[in-house]
């Protein structure tokens, strides 16, 4: 692959420890990680829609941060 300076500019900002951890995992484990992230993303989306956070007893005034 030809080096691309624009793509290379992103590399210092990438947490390679996460990549190294993932490379130690099986495909199944990596996929389960994706499923967990998807569930978290969906919970955050629903919380934003409701104006609260998951598990809160009432409407919240703020935005999920």
């Amino acid at each position: 692959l030809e080096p691309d300076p624009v793509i290379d500019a992103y590399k210092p900002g990438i947490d390679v420890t996460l990549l190294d951890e993932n490379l130690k995992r099986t495909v199944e484990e990596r996929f389960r990680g994706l499923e967990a992230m998807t569930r978290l993303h969906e919970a955050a989306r629903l919380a934003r829609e409701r104006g609260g956070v998951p598990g809160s007893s009432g409407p919240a005034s703020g935005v999920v941060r």
Partner: protein
Amino acid sequence: VTDQRALLRLLVQGDVRFIVVGGVAAVIHGSARLTLDVDVVYDRAPDNIERLAAVLAPRRPYLRGAPPGLPFAWDAPTIRRGLNFTLTTDLGDLDLLGEVAGGGSYADLLPHAAQVAMEDLRFLCVDLATLIRLKRAAGRPKDLEAVAELELLLARLRGRGPA
């Protein structure tokens, strides 16, 4: 929310010939990025189109982003008339690609795919170097960081990654 595993299982159980590309392929290769759809390149052979039509129809596929109420029928003639479909389904978002930029058709990609085993599922996934090539060819600004991550993964797998 997309159930990536259920979408893949549906295609596998329907004996559809496909190759996983895109974000799910990136995760399979070790990416830490979230992807909310499943992208596959499917074989355009007539028997495969019939299977794709049959297996997805009960999942109410519809054109993603299109206004509701369009006379869109998910069947083999529709697939034959089209090529690439970005769909919503009951199981989430599914991109069906008859051809992909930088990679061509299912037959073109086949030499660059390997079987992945995940629990009881077996399917083809594009190899990491080809995935990088596809994402570069797509040329989308949002992919730049993803490509950078994939290139770091490839470098580490080849044993010449930065410490």
